[in-house]
């Protein structure tokens, strides 16, 4: 043991003399661990929330019976099924508005609720009575209570009735209010109706479903993956992909730092062996040293990761809420396994990055047989091998594009593209540099290109990191830009009214309408409405569009039949949202049956419209037809056409007259700003990770250059000896670095655009259900090119400055010490 410690101390003494190297190694490991575990923390946080939601009262974890083609079923089916041996528990779900804020209302039946439905509210003993008998209780998560701005015990109003008093239930999923089913039926005005029946796990004999419920109900098997998990997969995959990318870029740094340290310590290792340290012991201690460093870096990385996650969490939560309606608590809570996994990934990463060096150490002979490296031959073989691998990976990507049809396949295409590009990069550089060499005339010029080629093997890892970071930046930047541009145009069409009102109740809405009709500045009142239904077993929204020129002129349709708007009027046709059309493979001219309270509503599709940012499928129908078919539709929403100058006074008058606040009445500009803000937040995480990755790539380049700078002195010394000034040499070195960085960046641009295309045409379509037009933003590309060169300049500056200021003695020593 003591011996091990002594050897360890000797090995570690190297770092004391080379603190920069140690710093590089640690920075690499820390940034790899930090970004990776930060992203993992975010994912874990979100998954916990989904689990909570899925486990709450029969999310998708529980088997359930749902109406075959109706949103709700009669409660009698519940009793009939119980009496036929089915361990079912009824549930009613709907949406209500509290102070203009939409929340999910869930009616449960606590007595029959299956015990497997974990996370159910422990309706505290004496509380069953309070929960089920009037006025009942309304369970709410603390977060939701805060969002609603209400106190425990408060009794908000909704749907024209006073709701049961609120009671906080800690483990409840946010955004949901839970009441007894009987009370839910009253609030939602669905007496004797249930949305679904949860099926318990009891194995008691039961009658066949058809013999009890006929064709009215359909059994939905439990799904290990929750709806939210499925929906948000893309988002998390996206995060994970960035985490992985940063992790690998971090490992590039570790790899170069360890490689350098190992080269420098070779004599030390030989001396140790000569002094009687066996190869096995030495290797053990080398691994031990690495693991200790990884442990330290891992811990620091985890702390950094925690802060990264905490910093990004609000944006992630906002993105998930905006995109999928998923509620993520804003307080980061991490399981112990996260810490352990973080440390493990740090150690494994360090070992992987050091694998080559360690293998070399194990094979190292004690006696040096100084053989000049046949670098050229080795490099050629290595280049050929890498290029072959790259071609294979590209072929795989092509295959995936052709045959893959899933989100994972989409990301696999991206990964394959990037990997292939990284692998082929050295060959591309080689060819470019060879071309340069051939076109050079002067000896220094020839040397310039030839030496750059020789440097390639040492720099290629860092250049690969730079390539990937740049390509991802170009790709994501292009995607976000395309998104933004499309979204803005779309938003202009969607928000065509000048003022938006959401009344507190139908009665108030009627009053407001009457009042508005008297106002001359109001050019049009456009009522809006929204009902919930389902299609193909998934919930959809049914949107009512008034028959008005405002909509006909502005509402953006992606595809439509002739006279679509005219045909919409009678109420037997509809538009469907792009994501619904994609999911259900619907096209203009198809027919669908939408369950409505009075029976199925057959509709012909006459148009497809973009509905960005909506997790649910949506169809749009004539407003009047909607209120006929869904009589329960709240009539509280309306838009107004008003001349710009009259908007502010009208809103003020409305607020004064009806006591409406900012949430209930807003002008178009405010709505747009708000929408844009939400949308921008969606991509802020991506941008932040993007910046991180580029930063890490810059560090990778710097460390690689530092590593090279030392080993390059022997190559530079002869040039100095034959009369090139140090300043000239330094300038040449700088130029060389910039040249390879430029070639890499130029290669990254098309790759990045390809990545963007993949994101827009494959990943987004799979993940969100919409496809965006592809826009190229040249200014952005030039900007990134400049950033890349700047990064290379920064990275090269330090070693080059050192070279320029190097004492001639150091260069002379090269000749003396060269073996």
């Amino acid at each position, binding site marked *: 043991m003591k011996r091990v410690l002594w050897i360890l101390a000797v090995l570690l003494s190297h770092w004391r003399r080379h603190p920069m190297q140690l710093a590089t190694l640690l920075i690499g490991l820390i940034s790899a661990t930090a970004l990776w575990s930060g992203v993992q923390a975010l994912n874990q946080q979100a998954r916990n929330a989904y689990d909570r939601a899925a486990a709450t009262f029969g999310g998708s974890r529980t088997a359930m019976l749902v109406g075959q083609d109706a949103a709700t079923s009669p409660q009698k089916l519940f009793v009939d099924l119980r009496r036929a041996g089915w361990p079912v528990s009824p549930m009613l779900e709907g949406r209500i508005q509290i102070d203009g804020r939409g929340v999910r209302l869930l009616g449960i039946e606590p007595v029959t609720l299956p015990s497997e439905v974990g996370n159910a509210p422990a309706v505290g003993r004496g509380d069953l009575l309070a929960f*089920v008998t009037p006025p009942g209780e309304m369970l709410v998560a603390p977060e939701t209570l805060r969002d609603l701005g209400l106190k425990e015990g408060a009794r908000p109003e909704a749907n024209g009735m006073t709701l049961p008093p609120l009671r906080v239930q800690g483990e409840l999923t946010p955004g949901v209010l839970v009441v007894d089913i009987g009370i839910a039926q009253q609030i939602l005005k669905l007496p004797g109706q249930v949305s679904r029946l949860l099926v318990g796990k009891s194995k008691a004999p039961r009658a066949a479903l058809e013999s009890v419920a006929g064709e009215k109900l359909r059994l939905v098997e439990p799904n290990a993956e929750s709806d939210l998990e499925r929906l948000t997969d893309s988002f998390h995959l996206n995060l994970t992909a960035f985490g992985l990318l940063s992790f690998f870029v971090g490992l590039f740094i570790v790899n170069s730092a360890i490689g350098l340290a190992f080269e420098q310590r070779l004599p030390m290792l030989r001396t140790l062996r000569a002094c009687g340290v066996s190869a096995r012991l030495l290797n053990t201690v080398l691994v031990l040293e690495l693991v200790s460093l990884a442990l330290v870096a891992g811990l620091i990385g985890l702390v950094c990761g925690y802060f990264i996650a905490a910093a990004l969490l609000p944006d992630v939560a906002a993105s998930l809420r905006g995109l999928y309606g998923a509620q993520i608590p804003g307080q980061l809570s991490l399981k112990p396994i996260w810490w352990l996994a973080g440390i493990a990934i740090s150690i494994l990463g360090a070992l992987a990055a050091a694998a080559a060096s360690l293998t070399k150490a194990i094979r190292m002979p004690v006696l040096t047989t100084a053989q000049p490296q046949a670098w050229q031959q080795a490099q050629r073989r290595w280049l050929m091998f890498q290029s072959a691998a790259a071609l294979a990976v590209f072929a795989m990507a092509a295959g995936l594009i052709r045959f893959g049809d899933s989100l994972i396949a989409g990301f696999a295409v991206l990964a394959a593209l990037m990997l292939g590009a990284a692998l082929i990069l050295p060959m591309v550089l080689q060819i470019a540099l060879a071309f340069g060499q051939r076109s050079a005339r002067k000896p220094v010029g020839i040397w310039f290109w030839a030496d750059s080629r020789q440097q390639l093997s040492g720099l290629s890892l860092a250049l690969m990191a730079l390539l990937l970071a740049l390509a991802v930046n170009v790709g994501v930047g292009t995607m976000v830009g395309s998104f933004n541009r499309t979204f803005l145009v779309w938003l202009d069409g969607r928000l065509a009214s000048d003022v938006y009102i959401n009344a507190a109740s139908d009665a108030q809405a009627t009053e407001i309408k009457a009042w508005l009709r008297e106002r001359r500045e109001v050019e049009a009142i456009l009522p809006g409405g929204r009902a919930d239904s389902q299609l193909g077993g998934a919930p959809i929204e049914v949107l009512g569009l008034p028959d008005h020129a405002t909509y006909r002129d502005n509402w953006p349709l992606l595809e439509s039949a002739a006279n679509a708007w005219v045909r919409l009027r009678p109420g037997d046709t509809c538009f469907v949202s792009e994501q619904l059309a994609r999911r259900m493979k619907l096209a203009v001219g198809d027919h669908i049956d939408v369950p409505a309270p009075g029976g199925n509503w057959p509709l012909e599709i006459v148009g497809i419209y973009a509905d960005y940012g909506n997790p649910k499928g949506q169809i749009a129908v004539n407003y009047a037809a909607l209120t006929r078919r869904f009589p329960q539709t709240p009539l509280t929403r309306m838009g107004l056409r008003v001349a710009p100058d009259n908007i502010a006074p009208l809103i003020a008058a409305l607020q004064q007259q009806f006591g409406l606040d900012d949430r209930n009445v807003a002008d178009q500009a405010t709505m747009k700003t708000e929408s844009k803000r939400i949308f921008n937040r969606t991509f802020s995480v991506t941008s932040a990770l993007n910046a991180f990755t580029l930063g890490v790539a810059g560090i990778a380049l710097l460390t690689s250059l530092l590593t090279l700078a030392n080993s390059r002195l022997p190559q530079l010394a002869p040039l100095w000896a034959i009369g090139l000034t140090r300043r000239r040499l330094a300038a040449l070195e700088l130029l060389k670095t910039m040249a390879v960085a430029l070639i890499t960046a130029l290669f990254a641009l098309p790759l990045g655009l390809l990545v963007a295309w993949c994101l827009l045409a494959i990943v987004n379509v799979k993940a969100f259900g919409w496809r965006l037009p592809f826009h190229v933003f040249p200014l952005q590309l030039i900007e990134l090119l400049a950033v890349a060169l700047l990064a290379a300049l920064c990275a090269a500056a330090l070693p080059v400055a050192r070279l320029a200021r190097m004492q001639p003695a150091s260069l002379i020593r090269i000749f003396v010490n060269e073996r």
Partner: protein
Amino acid sequence: MHRIKPTALSASRALTRRAFAGGAAALALGGKALAQGFAGLGETAEGFAQVTPGKAFAFPADHGPHPEFRIEWWYVTANLSDASGATYGAQWTLFRQAMKPGAAVEGWANQQVWMGHAAVTSATTHRFSETFARGGIGQANVEPAPFQAWIDAWQLRGLDGFDAQRVAPLELTAAGADFGYALRLDAGHPLVLQGDRGYSRKSDRGQASYYYSQPFFRAAGRLVIEGKPVDVSGRAWLDREWSSQPLAADQTGWDWFSLHLPGDEKLMLYRLRQKDGRENLFGNWITPDGRSAEITAGGNSIAPLAITEIGGRKLPTSWRVTLPARGLAIETTPLNPTSWMGTSFPYWEGPIRFSGSHAGIGYLELTGY
């Protein structure tokens, strides 16, 4: 257990079987939840109807629920045997519990909570199941005429020619994950009022219930244990009891016997245990013609003979019973000493044999251990 532990349920769970033995047991166990539940129970006894001596029973009306009283049950136990002579027991129980007093409300706002227990016992196995339901929507209820008591798919139902005085013929069905039964119950005698003409005293401090039985059932039908059907026949016993008043706080548990004596005589006997170690023995001796007389004091005793340990609880599953005035001195042994009802509120309930001055079969219930 199971998600919710509302007062009402703990109460009704606690109140297994005749009398309030379970309730007392809950107190004895010191379970916080149950103790709280009972505290609540004590307060709200007010507002419910009270049990008083001299009630005139009316059938079939009294076969139905009495929602003005807090608790009520329909309780059937059956001693059965198959063609090869192997013996079995079957239990079917429906409990009703009112969460608060007042006229019954229809729909989800109904204040009744129902609980069902079912079990099958053989010499080698004991299977049981439980279920819960809210009143007012039809998942569980009792209708006096035509007579039907049910919770989920379990039911006790009057058959054609049902006679309210005899409470027969009946069909009894229940099934759990690994057992089930369907029995037909017939009786030649009218039902029997327990206690003093149906007024059954539980303590010296006024706690009491209305209590009647049909101990003369002949049972025949089929049991299913782990998918294997067995045709059986034998005897069965129905107990009906309702009340509003819980046990006295110091009563800790309950040992209850229903015995089929030779010559079609029946004995219902129970001992209430008190915290201070004192105990009270109550019972009725029923003659073959259906006349029922309360056991009179005087040297009557019951004493444990053998203890079975189940999950850390010590249960006296064999007994010596002595009623000198009736010339009765018997020793009872269980068909299966592990007839443990591991339900939300657990207790022991199973078929027994006895011998001595009299020999026969019956059922034993032990609560509060």
